[in-house]
């Protein structure tokens, strides 16, 4: 167990190095000059050159890469070009809001999605199943910003139940969390359903029925736990995606998250922030993968001993 965690973390470091290198290369390959963007269209060429020198962008690329790796190992990600503060601080400023939103929407999606998925999967090909399937497909077929703005119009403008944007109170979180949860609910419900349906055909459920269990008892007591691994997988993947990818929702709800920070940083060619944010997200994803695997082990004892057949 400990050995496995250590091995996974070591591989995780490798993955992070890969991500660090890839982002370093890619953001520099992209056209656009950080100094020019920073100074705006009015800048003079000399000014741009001086700023480039100040930012260290005039050095040979390998020197930059070397420094970057060395600094990163020392957990120094450099200063944001634009925000004039340590890049890592900029990321950590945004991280709490992002995590808060991610966790809330995940909790929401898991509760609703699991419930819907179980309802549908318990009795496949019945009307309940069809309604849930239709509903979840619908949920997935609306663009996020559409849902977000519609929710604002309905709940903030017409019903005046929630604030429309910003942070502060728990109420501020409702609309963005619900918006983010929409497609997530759909995915969780679908995966739960199909996994459950697969398990509904398993022989051990017949054993359960033969003991006199009702459908509900058999599903909740036996089939569900066995169906959860793919659900955990998509939840893990989705949480990872939400960390840096909730841009649209953050934008619509003026939610100060990592996604907008990253997109703005890319737009501004704020290399240090992009690098720091990517590494943090990569790190979180590595940990998330590890956590997912640990959850697998809790769910399926066969994985613990390495025997799956």
């Amino acid at each position, binding site marked *: 167990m400990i050995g496995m965690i250590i091995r996974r973390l070591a591989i995780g470091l490798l993955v992070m190095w890969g991500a660090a290198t890839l982002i370093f290369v890619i953001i520099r390959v992209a056209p656009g000059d950080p100094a020019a963007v920073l100074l705006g269209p009015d800048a003079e060429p000399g000014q741009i050159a001086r700023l480039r020198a100040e930012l260290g962008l005039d050095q040979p690329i390998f020197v930059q890469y070397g420094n970057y790796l060395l600094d990163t190992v020392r957990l120094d990600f450099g200063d944001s070009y634009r925000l004039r503060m340590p890049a890592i601080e900029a990321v950590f400023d945004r991280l709490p809001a992002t995590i808060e939103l991610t966790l809330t929407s995940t909790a929401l999606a898991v509760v609703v999605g699991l419930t819907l998925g179980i309802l549908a999967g318990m009795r496949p090909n019945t009307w309940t199943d069809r309604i849930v399937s239709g509903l979840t497909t619908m949920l997935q077929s609306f663009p996020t910003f559409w849902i977000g703005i519609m929710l604002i119009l309905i709940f903030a403008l017409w019903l005046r139940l929630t604030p429309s944007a910003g942070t502060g109170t728990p109420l501020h979180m409702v609309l963005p969390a619900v918006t983010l949860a929409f497609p997530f609910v759909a995915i969780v419900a679908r995966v739960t359903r199909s996994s459950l349906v697969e398990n509904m055909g*398993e*022989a*051990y459920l*017949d*054993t*359960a*029925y*033969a*003991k*006199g*269990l*009702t459908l509900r*008892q058999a599903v909740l*007591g*036996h089939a569900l*736990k*066995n169906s959860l691994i793919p659900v955990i997988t998509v939840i893990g993947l989705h949480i990872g995606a939400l960390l840096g990818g909730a841009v649209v929702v953050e934008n619509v709800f003026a939610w100060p998250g990592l996604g907008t920070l990253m997109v703005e940083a890319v737009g501004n060619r704020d290399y240090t922030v992009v690098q720091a944010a990517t590494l943090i997200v990569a790190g979180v994803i590595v940990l998330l993968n590890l956590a997912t695997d640990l959850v697998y082990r809790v*769910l*399926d*004892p*066969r994985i613990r*001993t390495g*025997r799956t057949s």
Partner: protein
Amino acid sequence: MTLPTSDTRVETTVTEPGQRLLTVDGLTVSVGGLTLLDGVGLTIDAGETLGLIGETGSGKSLTSRAIIGLLPTAMDVTGSIVWRGQELLAASPAQRRRLRGTEISMIFQDPMSSLNPTMRIGRQVGEVLRRRGVPSVEVQRRVIEMLEHVGIPDPERRIGNYPHEFSGGMRQRAMIAMAMIAGPSLVLADEPTTALDVTVQARVLEMLRQVRAEQGSAMLFVSHDLRVISHVADRVSVMYAGSIMEQGPTVEVLRRPAHPYTKALVASVPAVRTRTAIADPLPGAPATPADRPTGCPFRTRCALAHDRCVEERPVLRIVGTDRLAACHVAEEVSR
């Protein structure tokens, strides 16, 4: 040669008072226009073991599942299944559920996939009791007792194990413990030893016999292996293509089959203790529900088939003293 303790077994069953537990009559199961079971009839008395034998797809599992009420919802079931005077096909789902586990229980073929891989053995074995409100301390005690009974060493420790930590034989023992823990009157055993090694099979069969003898449960023992049936069953029913072909006391049926199919089956069984030549095989493959011939379902593979077998389907009728067979020429065959 017989199992060392088989004599005592015969004794116990014979002395058991033969109260009628289950009567299945004209059981017909169909799905999407296919008739899977075609008028199956059988009876089981308290304490006795009825063997149900037949080739793949003949409908053995469907019969046992119909009795416990676990057929897929898509299947149409007609006929009658009477349990202690109660018509089960007319009973409510809740009523039927109440019988399961306590009155009628089931042991499945594949001990690996029939156990929940993510639940500890102890919980699975005790679940029937727990669901019926037995206090958990009591459940725990009885689970350990039962596991000990079926020959699982160190049951206090083993209840915390998961199925994959058990060997095949131990899993099947756990399955048996699970089926027997609530002391059911009837155990439906669907090929309970097919997946096991010969040595393990022998031990499991012996253990099953012991436990049953103590609890006085009757059993429907489903198998496609005549050798196993010949050792465990008091009476045997032979199925072919969804119907019963022959039925009677095991020894009688095997010694003098009254149906050409039974006869061919008996002849195909190779022996370990004497050298036998490979028998003359029956031609063709078993009939499937989709291409079941008219008249006698076995006629396409039967050497004795004649015109009447094509036109008229033989019904199950009394042959000799205590036997039933569905063949126009049963008397000839059994001679």
